[in-house]
Structure formats: structure tokens, C-alpha cells
């Protein structure tokens, strides 16, 4: 079967004041339909740039990205990018934000979708609340709901829970897994949190320091739901941390 996403030899260099800065250096991989792939790497290695290229926000200098066999040239509503900081429109209430990406839906359809997704992310009763009145975790859930409203095939998640506190982060992971168990999406998750990657992903790509190449690919075959404290997961975590050059005794990588 044809992969959902094919990434072939992506390279990108940014011009800076102190000369060209190579960020991505020949990255190739593919993602199957419905697969959850996490990308981890040291901070500043170009993870977000890679995700931006995949989603069509940035053009690579070399190589190409194909989704369903079609080259990616610009952002599409079939693949939505989720930022670390929620990008809700501050002048719209939650309902306004949720219906923002819909086009051509009838009013009844809109109402039905809003009710469905507001409930899915557990924000019932907040339809007419403005983003600044919500906590960071609630904003991120609203963002997720807005994204799911347009039924994207692919989610590009750029450290989506990175700005949340540890407890909310855990809850959001559980929510994401629950939502994905109901609505199948292909997911690419950029994170610097090894545990998060192992908790969520089917496969983990480890990037090298800048300029990023794929250093290792780890298939995570652990059964779901995954126990963060299971010996298998902890063993994988230890080997990934070692791969990233962090000895576990010096602290965690998150």
C-alpha cells in the first residue's frame, strides 16, 4: 500500500547574519495511513522546521514531500498544524473559533459539529467563552477541537503540550489517545519529551543535532494502553535517552 506521507531527501538551510545555517540535511522517511509517528531530537535541531516543511508552510531547498502521492506545495486543510501555543483567534468565542475552518456547512450541520467536538474535548458550556478566559490546557483542547472539526487526515503537532504543566500534559495525552481511538488520523508529533513519544507513538524517529538527519528509528510495539512505569517502556526510554546522549542518571530529557 502507498504510504500516506513520503519524505524524500529534505534539506533546508537558513541564511543568517553569520552565514548559511544548514538545518535539515537529507531527511527521508514515510508514514503509513493512520500511523502515529513521533519525532524527537535535541532542542534546536530543526524538528519544527521539518514539521513546517511537511505541512507546506516552508519549502525545502532540496527533496520533496508527497501526501497521497501529491507533492506538497502549500498548507492544506487535509493536514493541520497544531502549535505549541494555541493559535485561537482572540476576537472570536470558542464557537466562532471552532466553525472558523468550516466552509459550506449548513447552520444545523455547524451546530451539530460544534456540539460534538466541544463534548469530545470536554468543553461543554464554554461555547461562548473567549480564549483569554480559558486556561492553557483548555485553550489547547479547544485548538484540538477546531482542528478536528475540518476532519483533517493528518495532524502535525509541534510540541502541542509543551507549554502545559506536567499534570495537564498527562491529561492531554490521555485525551488525545481517547480521541484518536474514535477518529483515526495520521499523526506526526514533534516533541523533546521521550516519555511522551513512547506513550503515544507507533514509531519514534530520533534526529541528530543540527543539521538534522535521522539518527535512529525505533518501532514502539508495546501494547496499548501503555503503562508509563512498565519495564519495557522504561527500557526503551533508557535506550532512547542514551541515543540522545543523555545518561538517565543526569535527569530526564523533558
Amino acid at each position, binding site marked *: 500500500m502507498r504510504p500516506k506521507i513520503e519524505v524524500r531527501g529534505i534539506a533546508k538551510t537558513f541564511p543568517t547574519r553569520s552565514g548559511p545555517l544548514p538545518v535539515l540535511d537529507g531527511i527521508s522517511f514515510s508514514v503509513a495511513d493512520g500511523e502515529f509517528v513521533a519525532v524527537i531530537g535535541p532542542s534546536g535541531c530543526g524538528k519544527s522546521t521539518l514539521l513546517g516543511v511537511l505541512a507546506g508552510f516552508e519549502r525545502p531547498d532540496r527533496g520533496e514531500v508527497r501526501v497521497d502521492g501529491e507533492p506538497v506545495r502549500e498548507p*492544506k486543510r487535509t493536514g493541520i498544524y497544531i*502549535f505549541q501555543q494555541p493559535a485561537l*483567534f482572540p476576537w472570536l468565542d470558542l464557537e466562532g473559533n471552532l466553525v472558523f475552518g468550516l466552509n459550506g456547512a449548513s447552520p444545523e450541520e455547524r451546530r451539530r459539529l460544534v456540539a460534538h467536538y466541544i463534548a469530545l474535548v470536554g468543553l461543554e458550556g464554554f461555547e461562548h467563552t473567549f480564549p483569554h478566559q480559558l486556561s492553557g490546557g483548555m485553550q489547547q483542547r479547544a485548538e484540538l477541537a477546531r482542528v478536528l472539526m475540518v476532519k483533517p487526515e493528518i495532524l502535525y503537532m509541534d510540541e502541542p503540550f509543551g507549554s502545559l504543566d506536567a499534570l495537564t500534559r498527562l491529561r492531554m495525552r490521555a485525551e488525545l489517545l481517547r480521541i484518536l481511538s474514535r477518529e483515526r488520523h495520521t499523526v506526526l508529533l514533534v516533541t523533546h519529551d521521550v516519555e511522551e513519544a513512547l506513550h503515544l507513538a507507533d514509531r519514534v524517529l530520533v534526529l541528530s543535532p543540527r543539521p538534522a538527519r535521522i539518527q535512529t528509528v525505533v518501532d514502539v510495539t508495546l501494547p496499548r494502553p501503555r503503562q508509563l512505569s512498565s519495564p519495557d517502556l522504561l527500557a526503551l526510554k533508557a535506550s532512547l535517552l542514551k541515543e540522545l546522549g543523555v545518561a538517565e542518571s543526569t535527569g530526564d530529557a523533558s
Partner: protein
Amino acid sequence: MSGLDGRWLATFVPVAVLLALWHVAVVTSGSLIFPTPWQVVVGLVDLARQGLLLKHVVASLFRVTYGYLLAAALAIPVGMLMGRFATAHALLNPLVQGLRPISPIAWIPLAILWFGVGDLSPIFLIFLSSFFPMVVGTAAGVMTIDRKLIRAASNFEFTGFQLFRSVVLPAALPQIVTGMRIGLGVAWLVVVAAEMIAVNSGLGYLIIDSRNAGNRYDLVVAGMVAIGVIGFLLDTLMRKLERLDEVRWRYET
């Protein structure tokens, strides 16, 4: 004492002290031409009775309305172009920054040369004075739009006019409104100066004419009071605009 009483008291006491000092100063100095507060009130009532107050207020407001609306109609689109397109910014910003520090008062001779004596000269000066705050505010509002909002919208395949109407305009609106408020304030300052030279109606004319025609300083100060009150009302109106839901989000965290 309730908060409301406190606020009234805080407004009333300094005004009362000022009026009292004013009165005492006029009486003790024995000035024959500088009016006491009461004489100013009498002057205002006189002007109102003769219908002159209304006539001059309407004349000033009419000029401000024309000049200001013309300025807004040009400044907001130009500011948006400057905020959105680097080329437009590179071409226009030096002009804007170069012309902006020139006081509209300095333009008075040119205004008279180009537009003669009549309504057009003050309208032109008001246009100039309110154009710059609005163009700068609008450009800044558009330039400082959070990039991720634009990205989010383009991810939903919003482009061109749709992107502009759904994201750029609402995102920049608070700063556009602030620019409009500053612009109106400056316009009201400038109309008075412009009316002292080029026309024979309006509050600026009232002030200069009251002085020239017999040192009626009671009417001079009455004109100043009218200017202050109307300026305050205009600003209050614009502040109301800043409280609209579409604008208020910017000022809440």
C-alpha cells in the same frame, strides 16, 4: 463613602479649588479684562442665547468630520498595505515618518495658498493631522499580528481577501481604533488653530474674534471651555468604541 461618591468628589474638588483660586486671583489683581469664572459662565449663556455657540460648534464639528473621515478613508487602507506588504512599507514609511513630525500648523500658509480662505483649508489641515496617527496605528496593528494566527488561517486554506477580512482586519482592529482615537484628538486640537486664520466661523474663530473685537476675554475663555467639553465628549465616544467586544480582547490577558 461609596466608590461612586469618591469618584465624583475626586473630580469635583480639584475643579472647585481651581475655580476658587482663579476667582481670587482675578479679584486681588484687579484685572479689568481677565474674566472671573462667573463672567465666563455669563458669557457662555450669552453666546448660547444668541445661537452663536451652536453655530460655531457646528461649524467646527463639520470641518472635523470631513477632514477626519477623509483621513480615515485613506489612512486605514494605506496603513494596511504598509503593514501587510514589505514593499509598500519600504516605499511609504520614509514619507510618513518624514512628514509626520511637521506640525499641521506649519502647513497653514500652504493650505491657504492651495485652498484659499474658506472651509477647504481647515479641512485639509485636519486631514493632515489625523492622517498620520491613523496610518501609523493601522500599519503597526497589521505588522504585529501574531504570525501563527495567519498560519492557522492559511492552514484552513484562507487566502487573499478572505484571509484579510477574517484575520488581518479583526486582528488589527484594536490598534486601528486606537489610531482613530488619537487622530480625532489631534483633529480637534488642529481645527481650532486652523479656524483662527482661514475662516470666519467655528470655535477657533470665536476665540480670536472675541479678542480682536474688543478684548472680550470672557468669550475667549468661554470658547476654550466649549472646546474642552466637546473634546472630552469626543474622546469619551472613542473610548466607548474601544470597549466593544471586537476590540476589547486586545486589552485583556
